[in-house]
């Protein structure tokens, strides 16, 4: 169950539209390491986790990612409002515009549509947590790349906030992995799936 709060997690107030910036930032909406994949990854994985600390963490980080998804969409929305046709053409935004006008649609910067293959839900908490730590690093790298391309401080402030959250989430997932490993039966030396192989591992 979810509730909605009518405000952004971090304010976005962009005064100058910029089609070129929108074209790269849309990747953090629906691209390979974007917030849509992040939220769906954690909110899907949490069901297969045998430890409450870990399923709780996946729920809370997955929920925060939904707030990040809304922030990224807001950035793209504010960057594409009031663009002239000339600006759309000059900013390389015509390819997106022809299919979506300036509506928000999940795709990567290169135009590849969002796809559930951007994330995994393997049904094995150890496997999933390693993916989650890698995913946070990949999203952090993408925000680093965006920051090298952009100099408008109105865009950089929320992007820097999002980048910092990737680092905190990476840290917490590392702790969740430690909790998971501490919980493994000492006889489960090769770390078989503790949520599925109970019968054979716990003997």
């Amino acid at each position, binding site marked *: 169950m979810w509730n909605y709060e*009518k405000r952004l997690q971090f304010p*976005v107030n962009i*005064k100058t539209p910029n089609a070129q910036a929108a074209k790269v930032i849309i990747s953090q909406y629906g691209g390979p390491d974007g917030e849509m994949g992040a939220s769906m990854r954690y909110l899907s994985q949490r069901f297969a986790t045998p430890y409450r*600390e870990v399923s709780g963490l996946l729920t809370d980080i997955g929920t925060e990612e939904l707030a990040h998804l809304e922030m990224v969409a807001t950035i793209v929305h504010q960057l594409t409002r009031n663009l002239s046709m000339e600006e759309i053409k000059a900013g390389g935004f015509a390819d997106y515009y022809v299919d979506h006008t300036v509506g928000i649609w999940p795709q990567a910067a290169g135009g590849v549509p969002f796809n559930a293959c951007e994330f995994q839900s393997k049904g094995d908490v150890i496997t999933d947590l390693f993916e989650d730590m890698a995913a946070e690093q990949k999203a952090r790298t993408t925000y680093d790349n965006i920051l090298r391309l952009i100099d408008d401080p109105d865009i950089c402030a929320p992007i820097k906030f999002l980048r910092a959250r990737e680092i905190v989430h990476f840290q917490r997932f590392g702790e*969740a992995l430690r909790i998971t490993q501490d919980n493994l039966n000492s006889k489960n030396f090769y770390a078989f799936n503790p949520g599925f192989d109970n019968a054979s591992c716990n003997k």
Partner: protein
Amino acid sequence: MNEMFSLMKDISIVDFTMTDLRLYLDTHPYDARAMEYYSHYAGIKRKLEKEFAMKYYPLSSEFSQCENEWRWVLSPMPWENEANQICMCKGGN
């Protein structure tokens, strides 16, 4: 920054503190000091949200307490610049 945005900024800061603490507590569920910290800020957040709803508009529909209009839907959406006149920079506002 006017009074409304200064209140919204306080709500953002308090809520962010709670978000960060929540994740910490998920992996440290027996840290009594962190729990105390969390409930302290949870109390402040409820108070500020009620004040915001009373003076301006409800940030969540449960705080909607209007008599003749459903202000939950008439107030700005979070992606409008109108709802984001907040400076989060150090020393700002």
